[in-house]
């Protein structure tokens, strides 16, 4: 892999004549029927970008509504807005974001394979995603859903007047999309590695997508069956979640969070993977404590299955259940903390440069640390009794999901952009966007911690006037954030046509994906690579290519 630290002063690199973007043809049909993991990754990127803007639009309207205590929209519209925001962002953006785009594109490249194990399944997974997405949009357009993304019974099953069954069907279908992706990644990681690519030579990105996939495969079916039970209960008026029929609404919450808490780790583990690639590359140093980072991902994936009831400390679970689940939640905070320490230690005595991917990565570490630390607050029994269902919780999970995962997503997008497109993005614009996102994010969400401790409840379209000041801060931050998120859309789009040619390895990075040309050929490698060394063998020199 030393060859990866490429000859620095080569001529203006030329685009590879044979690459996946053109090799199979450029017709729409050749894209829609493709089995190439890289093309499917592009299809995913386009579709999740669409949903990111749909969910973002809803978020903008939510923040707009909360500028005044009385609210601007009617409560019915507001309830539909945050439900839309939640469903779209959780299932149609965050869960597929990194795995289905970068994971799809990079896992085969990183392990030296020609494709995922099951290319047709991969395409099917995208079609399921798109079908489910249309179903969700259809439910929204004909009237929307007002249950929140959590679908709590008996409100969702008997009282809500929205199109709950359609929304449930959409989530059910997108669940199978993520099961198929997870299955594909697990099998690929086990069976498709190039000669010499042992488990401990895998990049952390592959490891963390592997851990994510395990959760996808084992948790998602439970969500599927739970949502199905709610749908049947709503249609036939018989079911096990309604107390009037002899059922138990807490049973729903247990089943729902049995999926939805591990789903939080589906949403953040791939982010850990991206950061673990970027930080060593721009610090020109091997990742500190590789095995600890790897095993903390696996630990998180496993322990993540046993903490779900910490969402239910005031829901009516027993005192002892509360004590146990809180303890386990503190246990799972440890591996997350280990990762932060390891990334920080990787910086120690490095040769650090601050290109846009690194700015996003540093932003990620900062925001994730705040998100993780406030996780200690909400995992704390007595504290949670005060702040659960308030903006404190909202701020906490946005720090993880948006501050963490979306920063990682953008970091990864910039880092691998040259590989995917063969072009460099404009560096200064990218740095400005990274800074805008970091500051806009903090301005939006930090005030929400204060609001939450003051007692502002979530899902309120109107609120007592004493909360207004902090809400105005938050909404102001949201507009900065909106600009920060819109910027990449423009300059990355521009770079597709005008960006400088990237060459195969603009960051002088290690890793098999940088050994093939940019964009890679359809079959990834001209000759199946043989791996002889562990990952992240970074050296301080030579200077990276001009950027």
């Amino acid at each position: 892999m030393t060859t990866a630290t490429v000859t620095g002063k080569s001529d203006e690199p030329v685009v590879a004549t044979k690459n996946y973007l053109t090799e199979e043809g450029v017709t729409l049909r050749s894209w829609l029927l493709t089995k190439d993991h890289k093309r499917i990754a592009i299809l995913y990127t386009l579709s999740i970008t669409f949903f990111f803007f749909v969910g973002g639009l809803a978020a903008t309207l939510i923040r707009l509504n909360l500028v005044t205590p009385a609210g601007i929209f009617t409560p019915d519209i507001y309830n539909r807005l945050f439900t839309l925001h939640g469903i779209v962002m959780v299932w149609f953006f965050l869960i597929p974001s990194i795995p289905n785009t970068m994971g799809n594109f990079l896992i085969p490249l990183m392990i030296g394979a020609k494709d995922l194990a099951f290319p047709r399944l991969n395409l099917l997974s995208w079609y399921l995603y798109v079908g489910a997405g249309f179903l969700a949009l259809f439910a929204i357009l004909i009237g929307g859903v007002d249950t929140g993304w959590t679908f709590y019974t008996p409100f969702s099953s008997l009282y809500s007047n929205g199109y709950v069954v359609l929304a449930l069907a959409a989530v059910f279908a997108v669940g199978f999309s993520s099961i198929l992706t997870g299955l594909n990644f697990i099998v690929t990681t086990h069976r498709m590695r190039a000669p010499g690519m042992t488990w401990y030579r895998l990049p952390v990105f592959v490891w963390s997508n592997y851990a994510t996939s395990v959760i996808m495969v084992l948790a998602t079916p439970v969500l599927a069956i739970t949502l199905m039970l709610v749908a049947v209960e709503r249609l036939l008026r018989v079911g096990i979640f309604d107390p009037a029929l002899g059922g138990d609404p807490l049973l729903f919450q247990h089943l729902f969070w049995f999926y939805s808490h591990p789903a939080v780790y589906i949403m953040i583990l791939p982010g850990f993977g991206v950061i673990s690639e970027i930080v060593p590359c721009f610090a020109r140093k091997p990742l500190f404590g590789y095995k600890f980072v790897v095993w903390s991902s696996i630990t998180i994936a496993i322990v993540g299955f046993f903490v779900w009831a910490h969402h239910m400390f005031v829901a009516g679970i027993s005192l002892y259940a509360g004590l146990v689940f809180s303890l386990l939640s503190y246990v799972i905070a440890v591996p997350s903390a280990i990762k932060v320490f390891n990334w920080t230690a990787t910086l120690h005595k490095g040769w650090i440069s601050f290109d846009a991917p690194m700015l996003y990565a540093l932003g990620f570490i900062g925001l994730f640390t705040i998100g993780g630390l406030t996780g200690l607050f909400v995992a704390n029994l007595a504290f949670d009794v005060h702040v659960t269902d308030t903006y404190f919780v909202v701020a906490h999970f946005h720090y993880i999901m948006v501050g963490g995962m979306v920063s990682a997503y953008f970091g990864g997008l910039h880092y691998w952009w040259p590989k995917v497109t063969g072009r460099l993005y404009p560096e200064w614009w990218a740095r400005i966007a990274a800074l805008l996102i970091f500051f806009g994010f903090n301005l939006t969400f930090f005030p929400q911690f204060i609001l939450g401790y003051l007692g502002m409840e979530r899902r309120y379209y109107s609120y007592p006037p004493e909360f207004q000041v902090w809400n105005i801060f938050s909404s102001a931050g949201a507009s900065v954030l909106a600009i920060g998120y819109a910027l990449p859309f423009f300059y990355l789009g521009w770079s597709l046509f005008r960006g400088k040619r990237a060459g195969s390895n603009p960051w002088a990075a290690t890793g098999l994906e940088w050994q093939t040309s940019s964009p890679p050929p359809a079959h990834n490698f001209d000759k199946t690579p043989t791996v002889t060394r562990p990952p992240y063998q970074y050296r301080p020199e030579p200077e990276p290519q001009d950027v």
Partner: protein
Amino acid sequence: MSDAPVIPRPEPQYATAEQQAETASFGMWVFLATEVLFFGGMLLAYTWLRATYPDGVAEAGRHTKIVIGSVNTLVLLTSSFTMAWAVHAAEHGRRKALTRLLAVTAFLGLLFLGLKGYEYHKEWTEHLVPGLNFHEDSVHAQTIELFYFLYFLLTGIHGIHVTIGIGLIAVMAVRARRGAFNSHYYTPVEVTGLYWHFVDIVWIFLYPLIYLVGRSGP
């Protein structure tokens, strides 16, 4: 069958046919892990119901058609046996035996579905279908309705799995007849077999939970 074994070229992402075969069966195992959790959610709901209303569940269990259920258990177990035998035949390249055994397996699957349909019909006439025509006078009526709600859900979803399995086996039988498999290449048969055994095992769990618990007490 004396002709040289035809091994289809592996798909482009695989280096060798062995790699493809191993990958396929590993993929099926991972899929079955998903399935376990899928049924697990429903079984948890069942466990909750039984723990909360033990008497009602026991009474509901006594309404179930144990004769049909037991015959069906036997049918499905036999089909698993013929499936295992079919895989064995494939391993030894015995094409005719393979075709016949797959046909018998598919037929047993159909028989299972037929009996299940008859059972559903009887339950319909006895007003045991929740949400549609349920009527019951017992003090445990509510619990019995919930029991039957889970019963139809569990057996219905299991039935869908059986139907898919029959489809797969039928395809395998046709391909076997055309000589698609030989002792070097029979991965699809093996993977289908894995799936069929899983469907069978699910039933092994459902049978006692549905038919026997209500009758176990005094």
